[in-house]
C-alpha cells in the first residue's frame, strides 16, 4: 500500500511537472478551457457515456469534451498533434496498440492497478473491459452452426458464403483474432481461411457484414452480439472447441496533454469499483476487474476454454506476423 | 465648347497580338475639329488603333498625343475621350438617364447641374422623352443615340466611334450617319470614326486614312483617296468610285456635260453645284 501511494504521488508529481512545463500560448477560442478534460474516444457512446455521466455528476464544474472516431483515426490525430496535444486521454484499444505507439502516451500508476487481470508493465495502458470475440454465423446463410474454427474452412461451409475479416495491419481487433487463431489452429488454417474471406480495413464493416447476412460468418464482440440478438438479428455464436478469443480494451494518458491532472483523476475513476459496477449494469460489458461480475447476457466464462496467445510473441514479432499475413493474402 | 478643337496624333505605333502584328509603325495626324475616318477591311488594325487612342490597348512602341500631351501610358479613365462602341455597350441595369449621367456622377456633379447637362445632351440627340427607359426597351437607333449622348456629355477632347452603324439596318444607317455628321459639325469636336463601309467614309469624312494589314496605305480627303489611289492595293480596297461634278436641277437630277442623271438628289440642293461620288453598286446598265 505504501509503495502504491508513493507511486501514485510520484505519478501525480510527474503529471504536475508536465503541466508546469507546458506553456499554453495566447488565448485562442478553440483551446480547451482551463479546467477541463478532452477525451479521444475510439468507442461508441454506449460504452463511454454511462461512466462519463457518472463522473460529470461528481464533478459538475468540470467541462468534458469527447471526440469520437475509429482507433486509427484517433491515433493519427494524437500523432499529428504531438507538438501541442489537444487530447488528454485516449479511450479504447488493446495493449499492443499502446505498446506500438509508446511515445504518444504517459505512464500512470493507478491506485486500483492490483485488481486487474491484465496489466501493462509500462504503465501506459489501463484496462477497462475484457471482451470475448466470437466467431459468429448468420443463420440466413448457414444451415448448421459449426462447433469449431476448423469447420469453417471445410468445403461444405465455404459453399454457404464468405467469412468477414478485418485487416490486422490496420485493426487491433483483427490482430488479436489473427494471433489467437494462429495459436490454436496454425498458419495453415489462416492460409486456407483467406481463400474465402471478405477482407476489410474496418472492423465495423466486418461486424455489419455478418449481421446483415452479406457474409456467412464473421467475428463479433460479445456485447454487440447480445445487442443484435435482442433486436432479432439472425446470428449464432460458435462456441469453438479450440477455445474463445478474448481482447481487452483500455485507456491511456496522452503524453503532454493540456490537463494531466484531470486526466489522471478520470483514469483513476475509470479504474474504480464504482465505475466498473456501472460497466456491469449500464454499459453491459465484461469488466476487466477481478472483483466485478460480467454484465447480464454475457457468457459466464468459468470453465470455458480461453485462447491465450503468447504476449511476448504478439508484441515482439508483430512485424513478422503481419508480413506473414500479407504473404498469405497475396497467395489467396 | 470652351476650348478649341483638339489635335490628336499618333507616331510610330506598333502592337502585336501573338505573332501577327496588328499595327506596324503607324503614324497619323488627325484633323482637329474634323471628321477623321479609319477605313479598311476587317483585320487591318483600324479598331486596334482606335482602342489604342482610347487607352484600352497599350502599344508596344510609339506615342499617342492628345492636345499635344503624351498620353501613351495614361489609363483610359484619365484621358479626355468619348467612346461609342459597335455594340453600344449601354449598361442594362441603368436607365437611359443614368447611363448618360454616370460619368458626371463620378465627377461629383449632382442635383440640378447634373440634370441640366444630361437633359441638354438627350435633347441634342433627340431622346428627351425616353430618359427613364431601360436600354433593353430601346430600338437600335435609339440605343445608338444614348451611346452618343453618353460619350459627349463629358465634353471630351476626342470622340471615338468604333463602327457604330454596323448593327443598324440600311435605312437607319443612312439616317444615323447624317445625324452623327451634323452633331460633329455643330460641336466641332475632333472625331475618329472607324468603318469598313466606303459609303460612310465618303459621305462623312474630312480625312480618310485607308488601312491595310496594320499599316496606313493612304491618307487624304475622300476624293483624293478615291480618284488618286496611291497604290493598286488601295484601289482594290475601295472598289472604285467615280466622281462627277455638275448642277442639281429642280427635279433632283444632276446635269453633267449636258446629260441629265436622275440621281434623286435632295431638292434643297437645287441650283447648286455639287460633286457626287458614284459607287459601282449604285449603277446598272439599262437598254434605252
Amino acid at each position, binding site marked *: 500500500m505504501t509503495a502504491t501511494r508513493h507511486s501514485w504521488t510520484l505519478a501525480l508529481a510527474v503529471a504536475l511537472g508536465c503541466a508546469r512545463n507546458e506553456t499554453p*500560448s495566447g488565448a*485562442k477560442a*478553440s483551446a480547451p478551457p482551463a479546467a477541463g478534460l478532452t477525451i479521444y474516444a475510439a468507442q461508441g*457512446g454506449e460504452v463511454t457515456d454511462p461512466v462519463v455521466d457518472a463522473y460529470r455528476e461528481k464533478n459538475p464544474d468540470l467541462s468534458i*469534451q469527447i*471526440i*469520437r*472516431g*475509429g482507433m486509427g*483515426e484517433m*491515433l493519427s490525430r494524437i*500523432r*499529428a*498533434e504531438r507538438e*501541442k496535444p*489537444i487530447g488528454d486521454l485516449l479511450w479504447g*484499444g488493446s495493449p499492443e*496498440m499502446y505498446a*506500438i*505507439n509508446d511515445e504518444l502516451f504517459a505512464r500512470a500508476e493507478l491506485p486500483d492497478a492490483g485488481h486487474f487481470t491484465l496489466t501493462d508493465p509500462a504503465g501506459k495502458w489501463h484496462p477497462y473491459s475484457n471482451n470475448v470475440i466470437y466467431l459468429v454465423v448468420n443463420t*440466413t*446463410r448457414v444451415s448448421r452452426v459449426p462447433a469449431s474454427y476448423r469447420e469453417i474452412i471445410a468445403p461444405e461451409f465455404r459453399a454457404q458464403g464468405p467469412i468477414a475479416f478485418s*485487416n490486422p*495491419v*490496420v*485493426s*487491433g481487433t483483427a*490482430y488479436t483474432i489473427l494471433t489467437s487463431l494462429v495459436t490454436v489452429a496454425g498458419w495453415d488454417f489462416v492460409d486456407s481461411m483467406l481463400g474465402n*474471406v*471478405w477482407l476489410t*480495413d*474496418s472492423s465495423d*464493416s466486418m461486424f*455489419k*457484414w455478418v449481421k*446483415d*447476412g*452479406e457474409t456467412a460468418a464473421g467475428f463479433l464482440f460479445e456485447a454487440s452480439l447480445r*445487442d*443484435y440478438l*435482442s433486436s432479432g438479428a439472425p446470428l449464432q455464436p460458435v462456441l469453438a472447441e479450440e477455445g474463445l478469443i478474448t481482447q481487452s480494451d483500455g485507456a491511456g494518458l496522452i503524453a503532454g496533454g493540456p490537463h494531466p491532472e484531470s486526466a489522471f483523476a478520470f483514469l483513476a475513476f475509470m479504474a474504480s469499483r464504482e465505475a466498473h459496477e456501472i460497466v456491469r449494469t449500464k454499459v453491459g460489458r465484461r469488466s476487466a476487474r477481478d472483483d466485478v461480475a460480467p454484465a447480464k447476457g454475457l457468457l459466464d466464462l468459468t470453465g470455458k476454454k480461453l485462447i491465450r496467445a503468447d504476449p511476448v510473441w504478439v508484441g515482439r514479432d508483430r512485424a513478422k506476423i*503481419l508480413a506473414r499475413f*500479407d504473404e498469405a*493474402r*497475396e497467395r489467396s | 465648347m470652351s476650348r478649341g478643337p483638339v489635335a490628336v496624333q499618333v507616331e510610330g505605333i506598333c502592337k502585336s497580338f501573338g505573332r501577327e502584328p496588328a499595327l506596324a509603325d503607324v503614324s497619323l495626324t488627325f484633323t482637329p475639329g474634323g471628321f477623321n475616318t479609319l477605313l479598311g477591311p476587317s483585320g487591318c488594325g483600324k479598331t486596334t488603333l482606335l482602342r489604342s487612342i482610347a*487607352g*484600352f490597348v497599350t502599344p508596344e512602341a510609339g506615342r499617342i498625343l492628345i492636345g499635344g500631351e503624351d498620353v501613351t*501610358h495614361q*489609363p*483610359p*479613365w484619365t484621358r479626355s*475621350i468619348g*467612346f461609342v462602341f459597335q*455594340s453600344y*455597350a*449601354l449598361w442594362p441595369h441603368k436607365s437611359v438617364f443614368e447611363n448618360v449621367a454616370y*460619368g458626371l456622377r*463620378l465627377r461629383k456633379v449632382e442635383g440640378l447641374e447634373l440634370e441640366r447637362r444630361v437633359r441638354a445632351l438627350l435633347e441634342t440627340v433627340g431622346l428627351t422623352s425616353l430618359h427613364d427607359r431601360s436600354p433593353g426597351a430601346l430600338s437600335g437607333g435609339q440605343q445608338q443615340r444614348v451611346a452618343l449622348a*453618353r460619350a459627349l456629355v*463629358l465634353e471630351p477632347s476626342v470622340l471615338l466611334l468604333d463602327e457604330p452603324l454596323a448593327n443598324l439596318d440600311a435605312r437607319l444607317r443612312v439616317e444615323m450617319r447624317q445625324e452623327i455628321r451634323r452633331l460633329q459639325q455643330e460641336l466641332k469636336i475632333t472625331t475618329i470614326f472607324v468603318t469598313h463601309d466606303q459609303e460612310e467614309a465618303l459621305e462623312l469624312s474630312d480625312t480618310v486614312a485607308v488601312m491595310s494589314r496594320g499599316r496606313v496605305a493612304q491618307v487624304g480627303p475622300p476624293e483624293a483617296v478615291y480618284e488618286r489611289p496611291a497604290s493598286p492595293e488601295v484601289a482594290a480596297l475601295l472598289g472604285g468610285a467615280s466622281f462627277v461634278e455638275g448642277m442639281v436641277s429642280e427635279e433632283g437630277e444632276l446635269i453633267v456635260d449636258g446629260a441629265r442623271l436622275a440621281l434623286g438628289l435632295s431638292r434643297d440642293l437645287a441650283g447648286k453645284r455639287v460633286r457626287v461620288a458614284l459607287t459601282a453598286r449604285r449603277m446598272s446598265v439599262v437598254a434605252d
Partner: protein
Amino acid sequence: MTLLQRLRRDPWLLVALFLGVLLVVLVVVPQLWIVRSSLLARDGASFTLENFLRYLTAARYRTALLNSVGLAIVTTVLAMLVATPLAFFHARYRLPGRDLVLTLATLATASPPFLGAYAWIMLLGYNGLLSPALRDIGLPWHSIVGFHGIVWVGVWGAVGLVFLFAHDAFASLDQDLEEAAESVGARRARAHFDIALPLALPGLLTAAYLVLTGVLADFGTPRIIGGPVSVLPVLLYHEFLSEGGVNPGMASAGSLISVGLATAVLLLQRLVLAGRSYVMSGTRRVAQRTLPSWATVAVTSATALFFLLVFVPHLVIAFSSFLSWRADIPGLPFTLDNYRMLALRSSAPVFVSYALSAVSTLVAVVLGTLLAYVAVRRSYRWLSPSLQALTMIPYLIPGTVLAIGLIVVFNREPMRLTGTWMILALAYFIRKVPYATKSAEASLYQVHENLEEAALSVGATPAQALRDVTARLILPGLVSGATLTFLMTLTELSSTLMLYGAATTTMSIVIYQAAMGMGGQFGLAASTAVAMMVSVYVPLYLVRKRFPSSGVAA
C-alpha cells in the same frame, strides 16, 4: 513601362499576384509534405520510388488502384449511356413536365452522396427489405453489396449531373446545322448522331470528366456498399490512419497517384476537345419538335422510371426516419422519436454545418470571383496559366489528402488551427474554390467587356467599373453559384472526417457514423439525413425558381 506604371495602369495585376501567393500557400504548401513523404523510404532517411512501385507490385495496393480505375470507367460509361439519350429527347423535343424534369435533375446533383449506398443496402442487401421477396419469387438475386453495388449507386448518383450538362449542350445547338444535314439527305436519326452528338461533345466530355473524377475520389459509397472491393480513397484513409502505426509513405504515394489519375483524365479531355472547332454561327436556342404520341409516352415513362431510381434512396431514408430503430435494425411502430432526438440532441450539428458552409462559401465566392475576373478579362503571360492551374489543383486532390496536408501545416505555432472551426472552414473553402471560380467565369462571360470599357471611357477607375457595372450584372449568377457551393459544402464528408472536433461535428458526420455502425444511432441518422436533404433541396428549389437560367452546368 516600369512595374509601378504597369500596376497603376492595371491594378488587377496586383490582385492576380496576391491571389497566386494565397493559392500557393493554401493549396501547394500543404501538399508538398505529401510529395516529400511519398518519396521517403520506410527508414525515413533515404529517398526512393519504392512507394509508388508497390502500387503495382503489392496486391493490397494494386487491387485498390485497379478497382478504382475500373469503377470509374464503368460508372462513367453507364451514367453517360443512361442519361444522355434522355437529355437529348428532352432538349430537342416537346415533352411534358420539362420544368419539373430540370428541377429534379438539379436536385439530384446536390444530393448527399453517401445516402444512396445506405439506402440501397436497406432495400437490396442480402437481408434487405426486398431481397428475400425477390428470392422467394425465384429470382437469382443475391445481394447489392459488391462491385456492382458501387456501380449501381454511382450511376444513379451521377446521372442527374450528366442529364443537366447534356441537356444544356443539346439545347444550345444551332438547329440549322442539323437541318443542313437533313437537306443533303441524312435522315433525322442520322443527323442527330453525326451532327448533334459530336457538337455537344464539349458539354458531354465535361460531364464525363466530372463523373470520372468524382468516382475516383468517392469515399462513402464504396466504404458502405463495396463489400470486399477495396478502392483507393478508402485505402488511403486507412493507410494514414492505420492503428498499427503510421505509414505515410504509401498513403502519400497513393494520394499523388490519385491526383495523377485525375489530372490525366483532365488532360485527355482537353486533348480530345483541342483539335476541334466548336464555333457556331448562331446562338439561337433550338426550337423543339414533337414526337409521335407513342414515342412521347415511351420517353415520358422512361423519364419517370429514371427519376424514381435516382430518388429511391431519398424516399427510403425519409421513410425509415419515421421507423423505430433498435441497434441499427428498423421496425414498426412509426414514431417521431428520431426527430425529437434531432431537435433535442443534434441541433448543434445542424447549426455547425450551416455556419461552416456559410463562411467558407462566402470566402470561396469572393476569391472565385476575383480569380474568374483575372481569367476572363486578363491574360497575363505567366500569371494567368499559373493561376488557372493553381485553381484547378484543389479539385484534383481527394478530400482526405487535402485534410492531412492541412493538419500537418497548421498544427504548429503561430498558425495553430487544428481542432478548430477554422481549419474545417479552410478545407471547405479550398475545395470549393474551383467550383466558385468556374461559376463566376460563366457569369462573367455573359458580361461583355465593352460594358466595363465604356465605364472606363467615362472616367471610372477599374475599381469603380467593377463596383458599378460588373458586380451588379454578375450578381444573380454569383448568388446561384454561391448557393450551389453552399450546398456542396453542407454535404461534404471526406475532409470533415479528418478535421472535425467535438464542437465541430457536422450533419454528415452524424449520418456517416450511424451508417458505419460506429455506435451511432440509425434513427437519428435518418432524421438528420432528412434534415440535410431539406436544407439542400429547399434553397436549391428556390434558387432555380428565381434564376431559372442559371447554369448548374457552369
